């Protein structure tokens, strides 16, 4: 599988999409089993942190709705169903 560029961002700053993509990468490379043991342990720890981050993003997910105003500005949008 082609390796996406590994981000150096702290886990908490990743979006769900970034985090899950990196997690997939880590799992794949651990399954390949080529990395040195210490690297593998580091990858594993990063993987666990990514899972925790993704899990908390899922738990706290709340649809964010913003609207484009005529002048191209973005404003929060309050819809009555929210």
């Amino acid at each position, binding site marked *: 599988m082609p390796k996406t560029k590994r981000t150096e961002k702290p886990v908490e700053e990743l979006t769900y999409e970034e985090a899950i993509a990196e997690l997939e990468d880590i799992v794949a490379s651990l399954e390949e*089993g080529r990395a040195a043991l210490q690297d593998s342990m580091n990858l594993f720890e990063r993987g*666990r942190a990514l899972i925790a981050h993704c899990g908390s993003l899922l738990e706290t997910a709340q649809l964010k709705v913003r609207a484009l105003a005529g002048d191209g500005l973005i404003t929060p949008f309050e819809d009555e169903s*929210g």
Partner: protein
Amino acid sequence: MQPSLFSSVRLTVSQITFRIRQQLENDPTLQDVWVEGEISNLSRPASGHIYFTLKDKNASLRCVMWKTDAARLRFSLRDGMAVEAHGKIAVYEPQGQYQLVANSVQPKGEGALYQEFLRLKSLLEAEGLFDAERKRPVPALPGVIGIVTSPTGAALRDMLNTVRRRLPLAQVLFAPSPVQGAEAPPALVRALQALNSHSPDVILLARGGGSIEDLWAFNDERVVRAVAASAAPVISGVGHETDFTLCDFAADLRAPTPTAAAELAAPTTLEDLRLQLGYSSSRLADSISSLLAERRALVSALASRLKYVSPERRIQSEYQRLDALSRRAFSALNHRVELQSRRLDGVSKRLLSLDPKSVLLRGYAIVARKEDGAIVASVKEARGTMRVQVSDGEFDVVRGS
């Protein structure tokens, strides 16, 4: 004027009615015709067939629409409604009436719109705007979902509810636009362009149901071209299941309703993500534990190989070799000692036989000078007092001559 009783053809009522019917039914124009008029005398008996009269200023035409065709009507007919009815002229013989058997009725003006729709559709189709190769896939997990619709319609609420229910992880960027009337097409185009400048992952272009005129903005050439030109994939959800607009053809994906469009925009739900995360999580755990197990197995394999080649073994074998050597050395030594001791025996016997004392037994004597103990072996050595040793003792003598 009195008609001639004999020169004219005589027919029964049935015969003449049949002849009229043939006349009408052989006229191709009357068998496939659109008739425009206003509905009156509408009647819908329990049979399900619809009876009405089409009128204009000067004439009226009885119409019937059979149950199966009536069931396909997209709107309900009302007295006074201006419509276009399509069908064929037939004769109802028992009452001597001709009537239009309508198979389709549409609001007046719709026919012209439909012609325009077909003209534009084939034009844009020829340009390749609707080609299947142009269709882009919709992302499985959109981060930002753009929505173009009216800020006041139910469509917006339906879509927001759907996205919130399925994938609250996503963000919605809403570009409000009127969706009907003359101002709608340019506003829809602007909304699509404005959204695209924020690079959403997918755009929903939607509107709730309405008449064909209400939906017409979505058949506007400018809007259709803007949909085709959108950088983000577009999902259209305009009207109801049965409504097709040109935007539907230009969109990357067509949904029958706004709600269905929102479902397509969020194909992965939060529940799916939870499952996927759980799966990834157990894969991660499995991968590290199998990695560690592998390493452990490798270490223990190396340990046994190391044991096999370790000096300990060598030392054992050296010990054995040493043992063997020392055994050989001992036995060699013993042999040697034995030989030597036998030889010693022989020598000692010989030595014993050389003991001067045994000579004394044979009558010889040993004479030694008393003064210095020197053995006297010749005459000139004999002087002074000398000790004579014989076999059983000794005595002193003095040289007399």
